[in-house]
C-alpha cells in the first residue's frame, strides 16, 4: 500500500475547509471484540445435498442419483445426529461440529416464497418480508444499533471488492478496498481531486472512505503496524469463484486487529445447480469442498480471534425436493444454514423437520420451511454482538416480532 497516500492522510487534507476533514478525526479504540461474518451463498444452495436428510424415507426416492447415503455407506454423508449428515465435501465443518463449534439449521427460509434468485437475495439481504422494500441491508442496520461505545467510533466500513452488497448498504457508511496494480497517484493531484469533490457529497464521502481504508489495509498486513487509526465496522468481499483463499486471509488480517471491524461479508457464487449437480462425487460436492477448505484457512488465519467469531452461511432459498430432468434441481423454498466459529454453542442440528412426503412438501415440490432464518440472525445479533432486543425489534427487523432461539452462542 502506498506510503505516499498514508502520508497524505496524516496531513489530513491540509487545504482545510474540506468536508473530508471530519472523517479523519480518528476514533476511539474498539470496545467490542466479537466478530461476525456472513457468507452469502448466491444462487440457491441445495440444502438437501449440503445437509442430506438421509434417514427421511422419501429422500432417496426423490433424489435418485443425487441422493447422498447414510454415514458409513460408500460416499455417504458425514455423520451428525443420526438423522442428518453433512455433504462429504464439508470435512472442516464436520470437524467443527464434532468440536461443538458448528450448528446446523434445516428447513429454514427467509419470508420470501417465490422463486426468483434476485428477489430472494434482495429479501435475504434487506431482512424485510417483501423484495425491493429497502435499499438498506439488515447488517448495516445492525451495526448502527450496536451498543454505544461498542464500535470503534469511526463511521466507517470496509468492503473488500469493488461493490458493496445490499446487506451492508445503508446510512452507516461503507468503504471498500481491493488490491490494485495501478501506480499510486501523487499527493498534489489527489489533493486537487479531493478539493473538487468537496461540493459533491457522494464523491467526497467515497473518496474519504477509500483513503481511510487504504491505510487499514496497509496496516492489516503489518503485524506491528502503527496503532491508532480507525477501525472498520464492516468489511465485505466478493472473491472470484473458487479463489477464496487470499480473500479469507486478508479478511482475517482485518478482523484480527484489536480495533478491527466487527462485521464482514463474503459473497460466494456457483450454487445454482440446475444441471449435473451430482451426488457424492459431483460438482456441488466439489464446490462445497472448495468453500470448506477456505473456511479451514479462515479459522487458521484468525488464530485466537476464532474463539470470538461467529460465521453465518446462508442462501436465498433452497431447491426442489426432487431431482429435475437434467441431474440437477430447480429453484425451491426451504434451505439449510450454518453457524460456525469458536463462539458458537455448537454440535447440534436445529430443526423442526417437516418431512419429504408428498403431503409435507411446500406446494407439492419443495422442502417446507419451519424456521425463519431471521430468528437465527436476530439471536446472533443479540447474544453475540450484544444488540438490544428493543433495537432489534424496532430497527433491524421491524416488520414483526421474531422469536429468539436458545443456546446458539456460548455463554
Amino acid at each position, binding site marked *: 500500500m502506498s506510503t505516499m497516500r498514508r502520508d497524505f492522510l496524516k496531513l489530513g487534507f491540509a487545504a482545510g475547509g474540506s468536508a473530508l476533514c471530519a472523517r479523519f478525526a480518528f476514533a476511539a479504540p474498539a470496545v467490542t471484540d466479537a466478530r461476525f461474518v456472513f457468507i452469502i451463498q448466491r444462487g440457491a444452495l441445495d440444502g438437501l445435498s449440503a445437509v442430506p436428510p438421509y434417514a427421511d424415507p422419501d429422500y432417496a426416492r426423490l433424489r*435418485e442419483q443425487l441422493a447422498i447415503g447414510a454415514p458409513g455407506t460408500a460416499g455417504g454423508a458425514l455423520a451428525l445426529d443420526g438423522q442428518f449428515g453433512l455433504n462429504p465435501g464439508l470435512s472442516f465443518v464436520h470437524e467443527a461440529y464434532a468440536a461443538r463449534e458448528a450448528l446446523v439449521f434445516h428447513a429454514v427460509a427467509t419470508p420470501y416464497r*417465490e*422463486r*426468483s*434468485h*434476485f*428477489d430472494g437475495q434482495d429479501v435475504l439481504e434487506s431482512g424485510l418480508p417483501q*423484495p425491493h422494500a429497502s*435499499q438498506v441491508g439488515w447488517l448495516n442496520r445492525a451495526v448502527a444499533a450496536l451498543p454505544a461505545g461498542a464500535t470503534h467510533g469511526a463511521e466507517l466500513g470496509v*468492503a473488500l*471488492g*469493488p*461493490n*458493496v452488497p445490499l446487506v451492508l*448498504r445503508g446510512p452507516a457508511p*461503507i*468503504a*471498500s*478496498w*481491493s488490491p*490494485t*496494480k*495501478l*501506480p*499510486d*497517484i*501523487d499527493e*498534489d*493531484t*489527489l489533493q*486537487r*481531486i479531493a*478539493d*473538487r*469533490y468537496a*461540493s*459533491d457529497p*457522494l*464523491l467526497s464521502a*467515497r*473518496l474519504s*472512505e*477509500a*483513503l481511510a*481504508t*487504504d491505510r487499514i489495509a496497509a496496516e492489516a498486513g503489518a503485524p506491528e503496524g502503527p496503532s491508532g487509526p480507525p477501525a472498520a465496522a464492516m468489511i465485505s468481499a466478493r472473491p472470484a*469463484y473458487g479463489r477464496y483463499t487470499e480473500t479469507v486471509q486478508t479478511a482475517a488480517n482485518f478482523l484480527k486487529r484489536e480495533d478491527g471491524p466487527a462485521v464482514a461479508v463474503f459473497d460466494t*457464487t456457483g450454487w445454482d445447480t*440446475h*444441471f449435473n449437480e451430482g451426488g457424492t462425487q459431483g460438482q456441488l460436492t466439489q464446490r462445497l469442498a472448495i468453500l470448506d477448505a477456505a473456511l479451514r484457512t479462515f479459522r487458521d488465519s484468525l488464530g485466537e480471534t476464532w474463539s470470538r467469531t461467529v460465521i453465518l452461511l446462508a442462501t436465498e432459498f433452497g431447491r426442489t425436493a426432487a*431431482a*429435475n*430432468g*437434467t441431474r*440437477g434441481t*430447480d*429453484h425451491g423454498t426451504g434451505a439449510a444454514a450454518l453457524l460456525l466459529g469458536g463462539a458458537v454453542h455448537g454440535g447440534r442440528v436445529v430443526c423442526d423437520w417437516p418431512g419429504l412426503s408428498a403431503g409435507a412438501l411446500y*406446494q407439492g*415440490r419443495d422442502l417446507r420451511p419451519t424456521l425463519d432464518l431471521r430468528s437465527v440472525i436476530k439471536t446472533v445479533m443479540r447474544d453475540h454482538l450484544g444488540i438490544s432486543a428493543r433495537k432489534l425489534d424496532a430497527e433491524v427487523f421491524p416488520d414483526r416480532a421474531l422469536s429468539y432461539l436458545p443456546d446458539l452462542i456460548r455463554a
Partner: protein
Amino acid sequence: MTAESDAAIAANRFGLGARPGELAIVGTDARGWLKSQLHAGAPAVTADGLQSTAQILTGAEPILAERRAAQRARADAATSEDSAVATLAMRLPQYLRPIYLTECRARWRAALDSGRPLVERLVHFWSNHFAVSVDKQAVLGIAGSFEREAIRPHVLGRFHDLLLAVESHPAMLLYLDNQQSVGPNSALARRAAGRGRTLGLNENLAREILELHTLGVDGGYTQTEVTSFARVLTGWSLGGGKGPLASGTVGTFEFRSLVHEPGAQTVLGRRYDEGDQAQGLAVLADLATAPATAHHIATKLARHFIADEPPPDAVARIARAFERSGGDLPTVYAALIDTPQAWDGSTSKFKTPQDYLLSIGRGLDLPPENEPRVMGAFELLGQRPFAPGSPAGWPDRSSDWDGASELMKRIELSDAVAQKLGDRRAAVQLAPQLLGATLTAATRQSITRAASPSQALALLLTAPEFMRR
C-alpha cells in the same frame, strides 16, 4: 434546457460519451440527431477474425471429442493418466479465450468509432437485458457472436423478433441449460424410462424468460406456469449429437421433436394446443406484446436513460409507445427521446465502468495499441466484458457502482492514462468539447489551474460531471 446542454446530454447520456467535435455535429437539434440514428441499417461490427457461432462451436468439436475419448480411456484404464486429461481440459479454454478477446476488442472498437452512439448503447442495453455470462465456459467463445447475431440485427426492429432471435440462439440455450431439458412424456424420456433412466425438465430458461426477458418478476405468472412454459420449450436445442440423437447442424438452433413434451399447455391463462416448435413460438409471440412486458421494458429503458428510480409518468409514456406500436423498437426509443425528464440538465446517472471507459476512449480518441490494457481496465473496474455473472445482467443503479474502492481505481486509472497522454491531449481545450454546457465552473477552474498538462487531464477525467452521464 438550452440547445447547448441538450447536445451534451445527447452525446453523453444517450450516446457513449462525446468524441472531440461531436457536440458540433449534434448542433442545435439534439433530439433530431438521436432520432436520425434510428433510421439507418442495423449496426454491424466488422473486424478481422470474427467467426459465426456455428464456426466457433464446430471448431470446438474435435477438442470435445478428444476429451471424451480420454475420459473413456481413463475410466477403462486401471492406472489413470490424470495429467493427460488435465492437459486436454485446458485445450478448450485455450481455444475459446482468443475468440473471446477478439470479440471484446471488436466491440470496443465499434463503440469508439461509432457515429451512431445511441444505437451502440442500445446494443449494449439489450445485450445486458438478455444477458449471457462467460463465466460459464459453454458461453465463453460465443457471447460475442450472440450479440452480433441475435441482438444487433434486431435492435432497430421489433421486440418480438429480438426475443425470438435471443431465445433460439445457441448461447442462450446453453447458458440457461435448455438443451438439457426433456419433456417427461417425450419419445426420448419414454425410451430412457425403458432402460431405467429418468429424463425430465429443466426450468431455468422458462423462468428467466418470464422473470427477466419479458413480463418481469411481478408480471403475474405462477410456479405452475413456469413449469408449463418449461414443457413448451422442451426441444429448443442445438444441432449436433451422436447416434440416435444426431440431428441438425452443429452450432445452430435445432428443434428436437424427440424431447418435446406432447400435448397442450396453459401459460398465463391461455391454452396452447400447437405441437412442436409452433407451441413455443405462440407463447413467445404473446409474451412479446403483453402489457406486463411493455411495462418491464419501459422501466428498464427509463432506468438506463433517465434515472435510477425513473419517474412513473416517464415509464408509462414509454410503455404506451411499446403497447401501441406492438413493440416496434424505434417507436419506443423515440418516445424515450421525447420524454422531458431525460433532458433534465442535472447529470443523473453515475457511469458504469463500461460507460466510464468508453467515454474516456472516445473522448481521448484512444488509439488501438492501448486495447490490451483496456481489457485489463474493464476487469480492474469490475465489469469484465460479457461477464455479468448472472442472467439478470449488470445492475443499473448508482449504488451498484459507486463504491469507495471503485472510485479510487477510477482515479488511479485516470491518472495513469493522463500520465501517458497528457502531453498530447490538452484538457483545457478538450473539456468543453466533451462536456459542453454541463462543464462546471469549478471543474474548468481546477483544469486551468493544474500544475501540469497531465494533471489537468486527470482532473478532467475524474471530474464529478465526467463520472456521470
